[in-house]
């Protein structure tokens, strides 16, 4: 995205109107429905925090973040619980307007999340971003940004080297 463009991240509120003039493919309907029908409830209950990505021409996307734990399967021994878990910030939902894709808005969203993590580090340390890419295109996007594929389209980005700076 051109640096001259200003992208804002507006937290969802009661007046947020999702989907007005938003262009999306049928396959993305489920994601948009999350923002239309569930996002505000999740936010009220402090499950996730949702943002509108807004630039001068209007809304270009939506982003939902939540905290989660990355853990290892089959932890039968209670002694292992906690040892095989890592806290993370999940990029739970991210959708960019169909006509605005490929212009750097997705990368801006990652920059925004990293800024949040850098601010958080003084209070709550969290070094991992995690995302479940829904398709190959999304997977490629996150890999190009530096996320590492773990398995089944679950990608992780480790912020630790950045947090040392």
């Amino acid at each position, binding site marked *: 995205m051109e640096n001259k463009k200003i992208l804002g*991240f507006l937290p969802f509120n009661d007046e947020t109107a999702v989907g007005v003039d938003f262009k999306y493919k049928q396959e993305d309907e489920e994601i948009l429905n999350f923002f239309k029908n569930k996002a505000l409830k999740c936010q009220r209950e402090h499950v996730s925090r949702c943002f509108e990505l807004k630039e001068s021409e209007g809304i270009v996307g939506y982003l939902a973040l939540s905290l989660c734990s990355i*853990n290892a*399967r089959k932890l039968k021994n209670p002694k292992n619980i906690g040892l095989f878990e890592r806290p993370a910030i999940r990029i739970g939902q991210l*959708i960019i307007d169909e006509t605005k894709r490929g212009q750097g808005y997705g990368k801006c969203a990652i920059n925004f999340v*990293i800024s949040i993590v850098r601010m958080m580090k003084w209070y709550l340390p969290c070094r991992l971003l995690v995302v479940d890419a829904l398709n190959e295109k*999304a997977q490629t996007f996150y890999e190009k940004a530096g996320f*590492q594929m773990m398995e089944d389209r679950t990608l992780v980005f480790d912020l630790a080297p950045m947090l040392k700076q």
Partner: protein
Amino acid sequence: MKTKSQLGSVTLSRKAFAKLEKMLKENDSRNYLNKQEKELLEGSKKFDKYVASIANGK
């Protein structure tokens, strides 16, 4: 791009979790940023004031 609708925890196989732990260990001993990290860090700094203003409810 888009991501899946999930809010719960992320469960990895033992093998994938070991891969994650290996990556974390390597990064713990690394004191420099690669090209992607440098770009993302610089990009994130542009949002610092904005993120602070959201935290302050402005």
